[in-house]
């Protein structure tokens, strides 16, 4: 199994009482809450953490894209990836990903990822999310009725731009280009691996499987809650007659590793509560714009990941109003949900290295996922704790789980970089 150290890059200083005083962490979060000096420190700390993860032995580092978001400070994942391209000379860069429907023309994404693939010598994974409603529909003003069609066309254009060996014209519904000529070209041939991060759309399961893209469920609610979604994906794979190779899939999971379970409880309680209460305080009016879901998803009654986050935030706010107390007191997550219950439900896997390894095996086997997106930073976790967590995960947990699936399956969706002796020196580290 492959382990990707994945960063959301939350704003670390959302104020106490944020849930009571502000409607949403996303879309209309108060611009006055952003202190650029805090941003300066956060970005540099977060890049340090990603670099540390690559140094201590993670297979890859991962970045993503969010807009107007208090828990995701990466409007451009490619900017962060470009800093890591040189400072993480061996790790794969999982860019998870560019919301390609937002760019006009999406050819820009093809070009930037080709640049990164050249700089890294072929260490890029290209993630193409449809994008959350908050990012695409509200922050970037896309029409929900046409977003998916625009997205699928953008993916098609990017892949053609990478794989067509001559200049061509593209007469799409949304993109009219007389001359398509992606210059530079990606190192990986015919193209970098394509991974599709999803949040629960049933049509994305079949679409990913049909095109042999990796389906990656970026859940905030852990492996137990993710079972239904992943079963839906594997059913789609089976129905298409494809092999259930676990490397077709990935899953995001929060981890908190410590020398002992007791230490883990001490270290990770506050950052977990910060994340699940403040960072997921999403106004439910932004969760379900009509047209964003496919009709199959509506009929299936599948709730998207951010939709669930928003629903739970509303429940917390309602409970807070009724009880007259703040929502981020000792109880976190759903109303009445304690940190201990959060762990029991599998939102976060914490404990000693052996305990975490045992749960990780359970995760990988039950969901059948070969790509683990490990979130070893969450909420307002201090940098030294992040480094500690990351190092324990890399040195004491991953050695116990890496062997999973190796005897049975080959990862066809991992980058194939240039040989080490062909690659330029980064001049760093």
């Amino acid at each position, binding site marked *: 199994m492959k382990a990707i150290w994945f960063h959301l890059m939350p704003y670390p200083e959302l104020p106490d009482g944020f849930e009571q005083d502000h409607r949403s962490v996303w879309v209309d979060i108060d611009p006055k809450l952003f202190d650029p000096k805090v941003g300066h420190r956060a970005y540099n700390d977060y890049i340090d953490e990603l670099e540390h993860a690559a140094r201590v032995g993670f297979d890859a580092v991962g970045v993503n894209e969010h807009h107007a978001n208090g828990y995701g400070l990466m409007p451009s994942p490619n900017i962060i990836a470009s800093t890591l391209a040189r400072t993480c000379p061996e790790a794969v860069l999982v860019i998870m990903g560019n919301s390609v429907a937002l760019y006009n023309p999406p050819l820009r994404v093809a070009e930037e990822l080709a640049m990164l693939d050249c700089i890294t010598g072929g260490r890029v994974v290209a993630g193409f999310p449809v994008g959350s409603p908050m990012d695409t*529909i509200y922050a970037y003003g896309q029409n*929900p*009725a*046409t977003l998916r069609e625009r997205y699928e066309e953008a993916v098609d254009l990017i892949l053609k731009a990478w794989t067509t060996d001559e200049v061509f014209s593209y007469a799409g519904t949304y993109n009219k280009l007389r001359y398509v000529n992606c210059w530079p070209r990606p190192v990986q041939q015919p193209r970098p691996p394509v991974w599709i991060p999803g949040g629960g759309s049933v049509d994305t399961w079949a679409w990913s499987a049909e095109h042999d893209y990796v389906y990656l469920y970026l859940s905030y609610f852990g492996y137990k809650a993710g079972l239904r979604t992943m079963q839906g994906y594997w059913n789609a794979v089976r129905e298409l007659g494809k092999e259930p190779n676990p490397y077709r899939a990935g899953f995001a999971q929060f981890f908190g590793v410590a020398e002992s379970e007791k230490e883990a409880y001490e270290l990770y309680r506050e950052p977990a509560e910060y994340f699940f209460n403040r960072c997921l305080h999403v106004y439910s009016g932004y969760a379900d714009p*009509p047209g964003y879901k496919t009709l199959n998803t509506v009929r299936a*009654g599948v709730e998207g990941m951010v939709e669930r986050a928003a629903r739970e935030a509303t429940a917390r706010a309602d409970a807070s109003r009724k009880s007259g107390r703040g929502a981020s007191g000792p109880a976190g997550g759903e109303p009445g949900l304690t940190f201990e219950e959060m762990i029991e439900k599998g939102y976060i896997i914490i404990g000693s290295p052996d305990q975490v390894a045992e749960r990780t095996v359970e995760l990988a086997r039950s969901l059948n996922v070969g790509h683990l997106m490990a979130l070893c930073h969450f909420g307002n976790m201090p940098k030294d704790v992040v480094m500690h967590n990351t190092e324990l995960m890399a040195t004491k947990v991953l050695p116990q789980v890496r062997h999973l699936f190796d005897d049975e399956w080959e990862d066809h969706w991992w980058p194939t970089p240039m040989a080490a002796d062909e690659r330029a020196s980064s001049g760093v580290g």
Partner: protein
Amino acid sequence: MMTSASVTVRNVAFRGGTIEVHEVGAGPTVGYLHGFIGNPGAGSPVLAPLAGAGDGHRVIAPSLPGFDRSSLCEDLRSMFDWVVAVSEIIDVCGLAGAPMVASSIGAMLALEVAAVRPEAFSHLVLIAPLGLWDSDVPVADPFGTTLSSQRALLTNDPAVTAPFFDDDPAMAGDMLIEHGVTRYTARTASASLVWPLPEFGLSTRIHRVRCPVTLVWGAVDKLNPPSYIACYADVLADVRATHVIDGAGHLAEWDAPAEVAAIATVALD
């Protein structure tokens, strides 16, 4: 063909699918072009009073693609696409050249059609049209909000829109799901017409609307405030009258159907 009260519902062929058309009354033809919620259930409550007002009217009310039981048209992506489609719909429904009572997004579409096809309507009675934008008084966002808040934005009395927003407890499971899907497709079509905000350049075309116009507004329109009356009155060539109805919200014909019908009758007869 089926009927509910005196309203007849039929399907009319349109672009390989059908559109649902409500019809009621006898007399001179008057069209009704719905707003955000279409013609759910037995149709807009303004249909019957409009048919019965004055010497009587034959009211024809098409449901736009995606609304009610009208087929989805996935090739409607831009305002240009919608204008062409609505122009076709008034032809297939026999509404070309007739007077039109149009509400909200329907009024926006009527204005857009009249701007490119000035003979399309003999008179427009417009209920809180969208399409112009005043930066000092932005039109509220009906879709960046919860379903219950959206409902509260549309009418002064949320109970009047129950046929659209509420599920019938007598419905069986599958019917309930399909009712939810119908509501979802109607909301999708509505959203696509106002996304990200309802300003698509009407201000550069509205001078071409030559037919007489009567403007009607709910006094408590929380979506598209009555201050917009002046915006439309200033740029339309032939505004015959403006009316503000006390106690009515954005979809004034749902809050105050009799009052809207009476205003329309005076304007059209």
